């Protein structure tokens, strides 16, 4: 059985006999602390789901997306289901098309899409690929002919007005493509409703972020999981589940304050092993007070605020929002990333930062150097690790221990 199919069988909504067991195994791994909110169940299921099919909900057109810079409001307003494609499966097959050192987020999903037995490529009605990094630009070419592709060319800077205009044009092109796929116009009202729904999601997300993980029954890793699965769950469903989680987390208080160094988690998105890293940080005795990963808290888009209620006005607002608030280090110079880091450290009173860059992700690898220099000037400790490094748990333990010895988190 191919790797992709193995993962397919684990899909929580497919309902084969293995699924429930696998899901239990995934859930039990995370439900290892007392008082964990029961509302985490849907998020556990979605995070266990590495691969998505149209086996259920096949009535909806499915649009695969490769990056959070694609405004999800557009896909939702068209009535389509979005599907996150980054690191769909875990396989070495994708390296056939690339170097062995190429970003696993891209090669894994490529392997899955190229796997005929899985038939993933045929199941997707459209794949939207923003060229945030060189690898994504390349996969667009590899996949061309296999499935319907829509490439969004992302400018590498956000300040110059003509580049913002360029990006607005790209968002408009996507909107037109979605209308074409839908076979009809997307009304102003549909778009406005979708923006409103995503605003509500962002509001709940902000409230979850405001929960103090030291005084809440919701751990930082779970908060990341809840917000990070936004890309995998339809927004209406997510909103409902996140609302329940928030209520539960606010009502249930742990006996006392959890102690430990307060850490901020940054770096490349972790898809296959996205929950292993946060878990190993918490297992080492630290508290994840916040993260800025696009597979974590940054999965939820910032609100788009249209100046006017016309379709053009709303599209421009979404384009500006997605470009201006993107955390991606592919945007250079990325000075607001550093100012955001300063804010996060201040707001969440972080004692240190863990930066995990994916092997093969040039943008994050280089950003980690800039962040290291920035943090050393601010006298904040940083641990740089690389995804897939088997020594990471040991390094994390040592880092947390050093912070504890230095009197942090007591």
């Amino acid at each position, binding site marked *: 059985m191919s790797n992709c199919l193995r993962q397919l069988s684990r899909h929580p909504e497919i309902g084969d006999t293995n699924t429930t067991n696998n899901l239990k195994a995934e859930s039990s791994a995370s439900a290892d602390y007392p008082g964990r909110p029961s509302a985490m169940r849907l998020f556990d299921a979605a995070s266990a789901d590495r691969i998505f099919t149209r086996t259920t909900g096949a009535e909806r057109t499915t649009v695969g997306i490769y990056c959070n810079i694609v405004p999800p409001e557009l896909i939702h307003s068209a009535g389509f289901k979005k599907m996150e494609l980054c690191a769909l499966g875990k396989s070495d097959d994708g390296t056939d098309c690339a170097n062995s050192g190429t970003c696993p987020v891209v090669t894994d999903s490529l392997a899955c899409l190229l796997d005929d037995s899985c038939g993933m490529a045929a199941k997707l009605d459209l794949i939207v690929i923003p060229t945030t990094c060189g690898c994504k630009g*390349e996969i667009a070419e590899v996949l061309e002919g296999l499935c319907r592709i829509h490439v969004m060319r992302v400018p590498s800077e956000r300040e110059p007005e003509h580049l913002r205009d360029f990006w607005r044009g790209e968002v408009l092109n996507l909107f037109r493509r979605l209308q074409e796929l839908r076979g009809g116009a997307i009304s102003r009202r549909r778009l406005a409703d979708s923006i409103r729904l995503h605003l509500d999601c962002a509001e709940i997300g902000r409230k979850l972020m405001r929960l103090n993980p030291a005084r809440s029954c919701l751990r930082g890793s779970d908060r990341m999981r809840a917000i990070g699965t936004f890309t995998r769950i339809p927004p209406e469903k997510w909103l409902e589940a996140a609302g329940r989680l928030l209520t539960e987390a606010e009502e249930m208080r742990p006996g006392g304050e959890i102690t430990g160094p307060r850490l901020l988690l940054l770096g490349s998105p972790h898809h296959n092993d996205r929950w292993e890293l946060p878990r190993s940080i918490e297992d080492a005795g630290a508290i994840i007070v916040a993260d800025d990963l696009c597979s974590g808290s940054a999965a939820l888009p910032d609100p788009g605020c249209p100046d006017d209620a016309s379709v053009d006005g709303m599209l421009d607002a979404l384009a500006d929002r997605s470009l201006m608030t993107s955390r991606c280090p592919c945007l250079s110079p990325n000075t607001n990333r550093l100012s955001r880091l300063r804010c996060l450290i201040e707001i969440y009173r972080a004692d240190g930062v863990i930066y995990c860059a994916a092997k093969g992700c040039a943008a994050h690898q280089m950003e980690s150097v800039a962040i290291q220099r920035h943090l050393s000037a601010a006298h904040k400790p940083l641990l740089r690790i690389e995804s897939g490094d088997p020594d990471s748990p040991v390094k994390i333990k040592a880092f947390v221990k050093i912070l504890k010895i230095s009197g942090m988190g007591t």
Partner: protein
Amino acid sequence: MARTNSDNRDDLSLQIPGRPEEMDYFLRVAGQMPITPDALAAAKEGRKLVGLLCGSVPEELVFAAGGFPLRLCAGRGADASVADSLLPQSCCGVAQAIAAHLLPGGDAYGKIDALVIPTACEWKAGLGNILDAYCSTFRLNDTANASTAVRQLETRRLLSWLEKLTGRRVSADRLKWAADAIRSARAAFRRIRESQKNIPPPITGLDAMLVAATYLRCDAGRWTEACSRLGRELQNRIKNGPEWLENETLGGLRRDMPRVLLAGSPFFWPNWRPVAALERAGCVVVAEDHCGIGRLALSDHELICDFNAAHSCASACGIARTADSCVSLAREMGVQGVVIHQIAGCHAQGFRAKRLAAAMEKAGIQTMILKAPADGRMKQSDMDNLFRKFVEQLSSPTVEAS
């Protein structure tokens, strides 16, 4: 072990039999790179030294604004211990070499007034965020397939930034003067490229690459003069008939040598051991289709804003264009084989090497994918074996027939 510049010069300024006399100038410049006496003299005169981190930056604009363009792309070779300690291990060798020059302790540290960094390559864009601390930087957005209007706006933005940097307003006449000067340089280089079409070419690939590598490292006028003189010398060799082969190249070049094209990731001075090994294996490199050549190969009708018109950088254009450009250049130069260089860390090339090879094979041109580690350093014996086999394949009549 860290190697010094002089070490590299020893094994790279090969005693090539029958090297053209006019190569002296280029060898001297190569030995002084990256901060050549011309650059130092320009700085003394008050001209701003503008470092270019990619061959796609329109150098005409820097000249027109009164700056001195200095291309800083380099091959791993110089002592890069500072860069090694700072940059990730998987970082591409070119970005490491640039960082080694520009970071504290490097030979260009503190000497460059400003940098123009195209953002097509993520390593270079990331490096820009680090180098921001040392000098003024400009990001040139080279979005793949962007319209001409977008690129024109980007070009204007670069020009205004340069005007502000140098304090000199660029008039249309001044821009025309700069564009003409660059056109002359390209015309001089084209003559060398034309001479390489001859069978055998009157110059080795290593020498021709050295000529291109010294462009934008020294005074453009002097470079053009030296290039023109070299072009004349090569033309004379060809005019002399077949006897020049024995008399002037001392048997170093032969009619039956397989002709090879270099494509893929760039080869930068001083990390040219692979090229030297390839030619030692018995073939001759007659052209390059990688970004190392910069805008030198541009034709006269290209626009200033056509950043990547001269070569097919994997970060800035699609595989179809890369393959077309490579196939047409291979046909124009009459090559039998293409060496596709794939340096670890250059992800875009990593993705397309096999597809490029397939496109070349389809066109009846044999290929070899040369996988190099991120620092560009391969074991000499491995390289020799690989190249020997490839050259044997190219020379074999059965393979040619197939």
